[in-house]
């Protein structure tokens, strides 16, 4: 009995693959390329496997720290995810499209996200505050922020 089911399962798999290769497409999601690399040896802010599994933990943690404590580091910021993973082109895909970075996987996994009912799903073209897009120590970031604000005439001594 067990042997039979195994054979049927194996058969189902192989036919599945055969059908796929015949159609020339893959059922796996097509994930858009990011705009930049985090560092030379690492694509995202954590190893890719870790991000695929646990990105929501990082975002959730950062969310509470930012809203309640005013910690505005970039490494796990949702805005920075979007800045890097979504193109700032006029016709960049919206989150409702499967071409959008977040939705490409989420629709595949059938997990709905409500982040973008409030948050921007594309990088902003004109915002008054432009946060630096690279990582760095808090000191570097603070200096960089200040420099940018000064260049826009926002900062004051």
């Amino acid at each position, binding site marked *: 009995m067990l042997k039979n089911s195994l054979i049927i399962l194996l058969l189902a798999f192989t036919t599945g693959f055969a059908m796929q290769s015949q159609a020339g497409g893959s059922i796996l999601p097509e994930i858009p390329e990011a705009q930049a690399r985090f560092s030379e040896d690492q694509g995202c802010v954590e190893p890719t496997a870790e991000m695929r599994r646990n990105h929501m933990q990082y975002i959730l943690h950062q969310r509470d720290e930012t*809203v*309640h404590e*005013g910690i505005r580091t970039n490494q796990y910021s949702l805005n920075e995810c979007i800045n890097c993973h979504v193109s700032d082109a006029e016709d960049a895909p919206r989150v409702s499209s499967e071409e959008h970075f977040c939705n490409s996987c989420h629709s595949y996994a059938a997990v709905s996200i409500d982040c973008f*009912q*409030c948050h*921007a799903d594309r990088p902003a073209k004109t*915002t008054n505050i432009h946060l630096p897009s690279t990582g760095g120590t808090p000191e570097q970031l603070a200096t960089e*922020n200040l420099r940018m*604000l000064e260049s826009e005439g926002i900062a004051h001594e």
Partner: protein
Amino acid sequence: MSEESGIDIYRRRFLSGSATAAAGMAIVPGVFLHEIGHAKPAADPVTSDVRWGMLIDSNKCAEGCNDCVKACNDEHGLTGHDRPATDAQWIRKVKLKDKQTGHTQTLPLLCQHCEHPPCVDVCPTGASFKRHDGIVLVDKHICIGCRYCMMACPYKARSFVHETLQDQLPHAPRGKGTVESCTFCVHRVDNDGTPACVEACSAENHNAMVFGDLNDTSSEISKQLRQHSTSQIRADLQLNTGVRYRGI
């Protein structure tokens, strides 16, 4: 937050009492730790060494000028549906008229960022909260949209988002079913900036609004509060507001 919300009623009365007696003193408990013109490192949490506040001089506030309101709407992407009763409004111009003399004046009214915010007291989920640096915010991740805070606020400072929104700005996430109000432009303040309304007011050379650290005795706002007689709106409620007014 915990130590401040745990403040007992006796201390609260005492502090508020002295605030009325000597407006400057109760809100300036002699903290000198804050360095002027120095951005808080992005990784550091806000502390109660700072208390953000605003001083509005209604004598300088020009009648007919709406620049602070416009600046706020632009900064946060607040758009309406031509329904004044329910459209989001974080700051509004109010006109006061002395019926006996006919003298009129205007002033901007926004979230007063109270030390003892009633909106925080009534919130059933903890979404309405006060940051350590005195800024009162809504954590929209936790807000269930019950609107108790809107009823509790004596200044009518809060709005409810009734419609599905699109194209929100990255630094100002907003969404249907949550309550929102003035954030003192927290995204700017955390980067050592000034709220958009204050900036717009100075840009027009009206300079009716001053923003700064109430705990820093050498800040412009503290100096002005020390120098001039100022008042809180509904001071009788003893909320020790972060927004003070001159000339009303």
